[in-house]
């Protein structure tokens, strides 16, 4: 019986997962979470990567395949091992989920293959692993923009913050609270919310009692929309400056346009808001192909994969040559220019977008260039 199962497993593997890689082909696996609680962001990553790879020059002979990393490090590591078993990839599109990335990094280092990610987890680029390349600005960039906007543009003195209990939320909280404190406008209220929290009125009731002049959010997509809707329904009309989840078209879609009046968000980019022809072209193609609007994660992954394509075009043949090209060159992408800071942080700009209360498409209000950790 066990023997039969072993044979069946081998047959299934041969049938479903043939080793089709040829000597002259460049193999780029796309390992992202398309199911589970990060499926929204993971799907955006997948779509951005596919859109870039499908437009690569034919002579580069790029082959790619998508594997779901779901929600656990074990699944991500299995997907990585399986991808590596097919042959040496030129580079790998890697998951946005920081916990999975932490588990994948040592394996990528042993295999000498670069991981191209949009994960914001600060720790990833602090481990001296030369095979991580992050194409989305980390919290040391976007939280500076977040704080500068409320300080310089809104002139707020009494900020209140709601953040997520997850690693994502903790990272944003620590950067934001430190920056605000250093600039003489410490938080007057702060509360951590688990992603499972549904009723936001208790938090808003306490927040209102602290008499803030601006509400800051660092939450995932659904909690961001829940807080904004409940705040507006409760008559709280304070300006809200949210994290990058609020720039996502799928978050804005949950709210009425008038509920978005006075709401802004920090992000790397907002493809649907851009007036640049190249970005408009990208957005149009993306909508046509995937029947949904792109967000900053899709654009960042698109740019990341295009930088890998640029490395291959410039003559990089092996994974280590691709890695070295990524580490030493500057690439002008659609969202921004990317250059490694020596640790794999490629994105150093941030954008503030705001809604006018009439449409669900935000307008780009401020761009902050090269703001790594500097207020």
């Amino acid at each position, binding site marked *: 019986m066990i023997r039969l199962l072993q044979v069946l497993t081998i047959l299934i593997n041969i049938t479903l997962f043939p080793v089709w890689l040829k000597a002259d082909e460049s193999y780029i696996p796309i390992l992202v979470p*398309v*199911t*589970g*609680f990060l*499926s*929204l962001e*993971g*799907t955006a990553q997948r779509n951005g990567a596919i859109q870039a790879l499908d437009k690569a020059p034919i002579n580069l002979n790029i082959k790619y395949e998508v594997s779901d990393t779901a929600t656990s490090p074990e699944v991500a590591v299995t997907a990585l091992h399986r991808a590596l078993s097919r042959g040496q990839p030129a580079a790998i599109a890697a998951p946005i989920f920081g916990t999975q990335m932490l588990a994948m990094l040592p394996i990528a280092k042993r295999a000498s293959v670069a991981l191209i990610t949009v994960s914001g987890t600060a720790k990833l680029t602090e481990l001296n692993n030369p095979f991580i390349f992050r194409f989305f600005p980390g919290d040391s960039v976007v939280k500076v923009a977040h704080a500068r906007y409320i300080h310089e543009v809104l002139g707020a003195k009494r900020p209140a913050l709601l953040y997520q*209990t997850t690693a994502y939320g903790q990272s944003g909280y620590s950067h934001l609270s430190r920056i605000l404190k250093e600039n003489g406008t410490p938080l007057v209220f702060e*509360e*951590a*919310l*688990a992603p*499972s*929290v*549904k*009723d936001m*009125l*208790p*938090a808003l*009731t*306490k927040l209102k009692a602290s008499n803030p002049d601006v509400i800051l959010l660092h939450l995932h*997509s*659904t909690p961001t*929309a*829940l807080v904004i809707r409940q705040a507006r*329904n409760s008559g709280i009309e304070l300006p809200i400056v949210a994290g990058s989840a609020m720039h996502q078209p*799928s*978050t804005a*879609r*949950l709210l009425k346009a008038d509920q978005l009046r006075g709401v802004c968000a920090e992000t790397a980019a907002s493809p649907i808001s851009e007036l640049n022809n190249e970005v408009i072209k990208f957005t149009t193609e993306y909508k046509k192909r995937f029947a*949904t609007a792109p967000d900053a994660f899709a654009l960042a992954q698109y740019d990341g994969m295009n930088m890998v394509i640029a490395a291959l075009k410039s003559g990089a043949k092996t994974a280590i040559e691709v890695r070295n090209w990524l580490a030493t060159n500057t690439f002008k992408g659609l969202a921004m220019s990317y250059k490694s800071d020596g640790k794999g942080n490629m994105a150093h700009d941030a954008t503030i977008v705001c809604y006018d209360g009439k449409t669900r498409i935000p307008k780009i209000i401020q761009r902050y260039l090269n703001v790594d950790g500097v207020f």
Partner: protein
Amino acid sequence: MLETGIQLFINGISLGCAYALITLGFVLVINAIGAVNFAQGDLVMAGGFLSVVFAEFIIANNPHPITGVGLFILPLVLIGMACFGLLFSMVTYTPLKSCPPATVFISTIAAGLIIQHGINAGFGPEPQIGPALISSGTLAIGTLTLSKQQIAIIVSASFLILCVGFLMNKTQLGRQLRAAAQDPEVAETIGVNGAQCVALTFSIAIALAGAAGLLLSNQFFITTSDGGLFMLKAYIAVTLGGWGRLDGAVIAAIAIGLFEVIVATLVSYILAEALLFVALLLILLFRPSGLFAEAIQRRT
């Protein structure tokens, strides 16, 4: 201040009522087959998505703008999910009814994952907003201003809970369902069709999950990964209320909703969640049959 307090109380009750619908379905299945339906949370999520589909269809085919179509959709969701419940029992329970309960709950876990990933593949990962039960707005009672939507949730959920109570306690069908749950072999000797009763119980339980999905999908949005959360709350409510007790489960579910809102307001969400799990551990330690006495036990 009083206004906020009452609004918070209503929020807690409305959340608790939705949890109660989920828990009620959960207990009905436990009583009927002696195994936990671990797909109950995913079925709530499926009900939410079904209501989104119905709402989009109705709005797209009506030239006049409609607000608050939820009340019209509620019976459709109940019927649709009840039919799905029959199919669900045929797939996850009937072929395995002679197996140990562990086999059945594993099959329900598998079914839940298939539902979750199937909906993710069909709808995409974006969160969705379900239809409002009634038109949005507020109700003024003296100086109080209350959300109509939440009052509608409380009234709808209470009505469904009372209907289930009436069905189970006051009708011949309910007696048959209870008899088949308590002792299927003896029930069959007096002419009760055990297989039909189990299928019907699944049908009722999953219809209630669908209704909860509709009620929650407008107020709190719905995503394909929400099932686990709903399942967890139902499991805690059943443990607190007593395995097998319908009334205990409903009371515990409403108490959980209220407890979460009150503790989160007075202290923090983190403490509310921590205390909830502490209460669960204490109950498991000192009163494993729940706060209310257990109504039935599986025969050995």
